[in-house]
């Protein structure tokens, strides 16, 4: 009995690590750049496929790929914001109008990125095996790759939090999140910082994609389910709150693990149920104001 509970909890926490990482990126894009990026999952997919290619073709260790896939998605995200969303932002009469428009534009991006990926890599399911040995934690047995990915996600998350809290650029980002206009007056290059935030969100997605590809099979259409998970986690933790996203990620991981232990077919429905209840009861999230 205790082993079963431990089993479920640890499996949930391992899954939660990746969820949290994905959600941090999504939260940054919405919380600061004000783009509800529905194509977030597509950046995850890009990260996963870049890793898959590097591992299969060149033979680079997937953990090393983190240093390649992340920066690539960072640059794509940064450029997209500078070309597309900056323009939308300056032409929108209000913040609400911008939020609506940028969400719809990111739907367009979703179709574009996904179909370009299908053209390049085909629509088949792909995957590779990496660290598929097992570890024994207090009687419960887990795959090494799950453990490695969860730990990596945690390290990346903590590193990112320190970056936001302790560096000058992090301060600029936090200032832009609070009040972009005033931050601009105080000498923050606001277009640049917002684009960077969007890029950093994409970076997190790229990292997430690399980690996901170590454990699960990948496909060009895989992104959307992760976007949905990111949305749910972010609502759970409160839109725009980084620690909230982390807590939300682990909570969702636990919920998923508990429900799929009892009835695997219902785990996604349980996520939505949680999401819907939360939106109705407390739309500002666990840590929201």
């Amino acid at each position, binding site marked *: 009995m205790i082993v079963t509970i431990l089993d479920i909890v640890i499996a949930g926490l391992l899954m939660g690590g990746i969820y949290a990482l994905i959600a941090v990126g999504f939260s940054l894009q919405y919380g600061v750049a004000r783009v509800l990026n529905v194509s977030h999952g597509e950046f995850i997919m890009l990260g996963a496929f870049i890793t898959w290619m590097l591992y299969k073709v060149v033979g680079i260790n997937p953990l090393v790929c983190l240093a390649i896939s992340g920066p690539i998605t960072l640059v794509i995200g940064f450029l997209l914001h500078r070309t597309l969303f900056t323009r*939308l932002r300056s032409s929108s009469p209000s913040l609400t109008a911008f939020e609506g428009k940028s969400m*719809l534009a990111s739907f*367009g991006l979703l179709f574009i990125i996904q179909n370009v990926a299908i053209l390049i890599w085909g629509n088949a399911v792909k995957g590779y095996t990496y660290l598929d040995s097992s570890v024994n934690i207090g009687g419960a047995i887990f795959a090494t790759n799950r453990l490695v990915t969860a730990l990596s996600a945690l390290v990346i998350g903590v590193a990112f939090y320190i970056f936001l809290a302790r560096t000058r650029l992090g301060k600029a980002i936090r200032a832009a999140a609070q009040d972009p206009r005033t931050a601009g007056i105080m000498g923050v290059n606001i277009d640049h910082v917002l684009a960077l935030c969007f890029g950093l969100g994409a970076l997190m997605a790229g990292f997430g994609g690399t980690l996901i590809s170590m454990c699960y099979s990948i496909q060009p259409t895989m992104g959307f389910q992760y976007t949905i998970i990111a*949305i749910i986690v972010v609502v759970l933790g409160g839109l725009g709150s980084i620690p909230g996203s982390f807590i939300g990620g682990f909570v969702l991981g636990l919920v998923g693990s508990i429900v799929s232990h009892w009835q695997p077919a219902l785990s*996604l429905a349980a996520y939505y149920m949680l999401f819907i209840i939360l939106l109705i009861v407390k*739309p500002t999230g666990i840590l929201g104001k």
Partner: protein
Amino acid sequence: MDIASVVSKRAFSLGLLLLILILLATSPLYAPRYTVVLLSSIFMYVVITVSWAIFSGPTGYISLAPAAFFGVGIYISAMLGKALPLPAVIGIGGLASFCLALFVGALTLRLRGIYFAMFTFGLVEFIRHLLLFWECVISGRRGRIVVIVDNTTVYYLMLIIFSILVLTAYLIRRSRYGLALQSIGEYEDAAAHTGVNVTIVKIITFAISATFMGAAGAVMATKWTYIDPYIAFNPLYSFMPVLMAIFGGMGQLYGPIIGAAIFTYLEEFLITRFPYYYMLIFGIIMVVAILYMPEGLVGLIEKLWKRIWGVRGANS
């Protein structure tokens, strides 16, 4: 502008409308069969898009729930198609969507902006997964067979739904009720202070728009012979209307109609010519439309029109 020219302009547009309606109503008599089928799918998207625009156009609440209401219609049609005559099925399909929208609206329309979009989106996925669970685990049978109805009947039913919808949309736009909706979109708190019952207006409009989607779903289900949760609750039915309405422009009633008609034709064309690229092309059109045509196709044409005729007016 004097009264005579206003009257003649109104008579002209009314005559044009009547002519289009007569042409559409008689088209199964002379048009090739393929045209009739194509027109039915155009009607389907036009109905979803226009009913989406009734609510989301003036209020600015982006609803991503059309797939939910459309899917409810489809499922009602699949479940009751054998037992009841088609008009009754359509009525029940519309009513079921109406009730669902009332319920959902009452729960969520106090959520503003992006939260509402996210909630409605979650709703589609939630219904789909619940249905999948029901079919796969409890009843053990995925998917259903739908009773087939011939193309001409489907065409006429869609034409009738379309006509009623356009009439409803027109009446809503012209009434005090439409003005109330508009004021909600512009400044919701101010609208509430001037005596608009914001919640009721929003919920009722949301439910009316859902009714037409449900009815359209009940009719269109008969074209597909087999349905399952993936087909009925396809999120594409949520995104497409939004894209079509934006592409057409929501400033005028005919904007979403034109947008949906062009896009459905484009979809047919692209699927047959470039089956691998068509979603890609859609994505590009979507981004370009949002970036460069904030008022949609109709807004663009109006701007051009003003530029051409406005100059002449200034000279005379």
